[in-house]
């Protein structure tokens, strides 16, 4: 239950600047996702917020109060790590209770109740006496989340919590986290991932980071529909947005023309012509890869199962209202 404000926050490791001046506000109770390619500084930013890492310059405020130097345990945060980071020698119960036992003024009974309550929320009550090594990966991650819940934090930090899980578990746990957010709607959550699907499905707002700078902040739909840069446009959405340069772009008065695969139609009088390289048939929809003389093949998304023979020449047209135009600097022309 806290708002977080970052003012021109910078972080460098030795000679390397990792965060190069970030201004950001995370609202109370909001689910904020940091997303970006590896090395963009998203994990570092999360660790700066947690207090595990010192900020080199700038200010960080929790509820308007400066916390630059405050120890992590005093910030009212809880953190879930990619590798779960459970204490291997403690039982699930001890793992979850550890933080509370270290804080003064919690009676044993109170601790027990809080642990059990958290365990119930995550349906891990039957595992309380087990050691982490006796649990599966998904169970371990739930214990890690349970440990965070037990602390009753104001801010919940997730550092790529799903990347060690297999695909099916990832989806299930993702839903679990979404549910958690609904139940604990007073708690601010910050979630780091490199997977834009997680970002799109979980976030109230997404913060796209690139090279230590904030590229764009907004709701998933804002980012999808009105990307502030060619980078965001390419990062958000699957399949990736097609970028078309050259003559075809010039006709639309821009350096680069962006169009998503789902916003293109195959028509006999299509504007552009391309040769089918490959078709991916997913059942519900199909991706057709076309060679249009661009650097990368252009992907067209079609509903239903459609198959084209490789080498077939197709004509396609972009839906004009869905076109994104970018100048030479990669900024949108609106």
């Amino acid at each position: 239950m806290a708002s977080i404000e970052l003012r021109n926050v910078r972080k460098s490791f030795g000679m390397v600047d990792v965060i190069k001046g970030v201004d950001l506000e995370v609202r109370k109770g909001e689910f904020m996702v940091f997303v970006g390619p590896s090395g963009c500084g998203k994990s570092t930013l999360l660790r700066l917020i947690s207090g595990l890492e010192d900020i080199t310059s700038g200010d960080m405020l929790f509820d308007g109060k400066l916390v630059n130097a405050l120890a992590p345990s005093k910030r009212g945060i809880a953190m879930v790590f990619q590798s779960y980071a459970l204490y291997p020698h403690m039982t699930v119960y001890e793992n979850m209770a550890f933080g509370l036992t270290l804080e003064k003024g919690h009676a044993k009974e109170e601790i027990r109740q809080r642990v059990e309550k958290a365990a119930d929320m995550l349906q891990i009550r039957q595992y309380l006496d087990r050691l982490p090594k006796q649990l599966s990966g998904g169970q371990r991650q739930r214990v890690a989340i349970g440990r965070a819940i037990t602390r009753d934090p104001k801010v919940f930090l997730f550092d790529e919590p799903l990347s060690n899980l297999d695909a099916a578990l990832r989806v299930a746990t993702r839903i679990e986290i979404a549910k958690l957010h609904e139940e604990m709607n007073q708690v601010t959550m910050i979630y780091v991932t490199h997977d834009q699907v997680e970002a799109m499905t979980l976030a109230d707002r997404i913060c796209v980071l690139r090279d230590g700078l904030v590229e764009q902040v907004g709701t998933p739909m804002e980012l999808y529909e009105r990307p502030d840069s060619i980078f965001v446009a390419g990062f958000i959405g699957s399949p990736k947005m097609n970028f078309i340069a050259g003559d075809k772009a010039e006709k639309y008065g821009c350096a680069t023309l962006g169009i998503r695969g789902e916003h293109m139609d195959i028509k006999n009088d299509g504007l552009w012509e391309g040769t089918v390289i490959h078709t991916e048939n997913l059942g519900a929809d199909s991706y057709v890869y076309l060679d249009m003389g661009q650097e990368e093949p252009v992907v067209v998304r079609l509903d239903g199962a459609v198959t084209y023979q490789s080498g077939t020449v197709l004509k396609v047209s972009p839906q004009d209202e869905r076109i994104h135009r970018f100048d030479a600097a990669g900024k949108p022309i609106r």
Partner: protein
Amino acid sequence: MTTETLASSTRVAAPKVKSELMQQRIRAARLFLIPMLVALAVVAGWPLLRSIYFSFTDASLSNLEAAQWVGFGNYLRWTVMESGAVRYRGLLVDPAWWNAVWNTVRFAFISVAFEAVLGMVVALVLNAEFKGRGIVRAAILIPWAIPTIVSARMWSWMLNDQFGILNDLGMRLGLLSQKVAWTATADTAMTAVLIVDIWKTTPFMALLILAGLQMIPKDIYEAAEIDGVHPVKQFFKITLPLVRPALMVAIIFRLLDALRIFDLIYVLTPNSSATKTMSVMARENLFDFDKFAYGSAMSTMLFTIIAVLTIVYIWLGQVRFDGGDR
């Protein structure tokens, strides 16, 4: 990302305010290091400095306070004789000392080389799955667990020319044509010392190598097996390169030990010039002869030589002790 530490860098652009966490950690680190550093300074640093200091004086053990500064006199001094010839004296031109240096270095390299090879063999055996491995593993550790002073005496007993069991065994098996006085003659004294040292420390080497071997993932061998790589080739192409880091570290620890060798030789062949090492000679001068300063100079040189050899080894072998900078 996960390998980045908590600690912030202090080299460039230190934060205006150190965070509580960092302060706490730095404070704790200081608190944790001080007792150890104090202990090491008192127990090692100060005595070593004294030794170095005495090596530049004419100190005598019976009267340390009266020690007079003589500069490098113990290391090298010269007198110009009436004939005009210059006569050099001191440790750096003392043939007995260089003989001891040569003995030590020779001993260290030969013993460590044998220990590395034999240790590798033993480690490979122990790394194999077979019945009774636990017992074998415990058995090979016995030589290492026996106090040096005891094993030295045990071996001097076994190496005895008349009632030593080794000569008896050698004769019975037809390996020796006559009883050998192992520790007596210059030719065999070094061999005897080497045998005992190799016997005693190979287990330690084997253990360190075994630890390295066990870190090699099994599937690498399975893959090699499927590719039909010959076992000998497997050893040279897979095992050796992968175990190399562990081996290098094991070798350096042993080398440091071997260069300081004292007790074994002191008990087995204390006065034989064929086996006299730097440590033994330093002791002789420090305590037996009235040459405390000269002995201190030897100790200092011994320390210097070990340090130089270690640095050269680390540099040549590119041994990385701290697993990179973190």
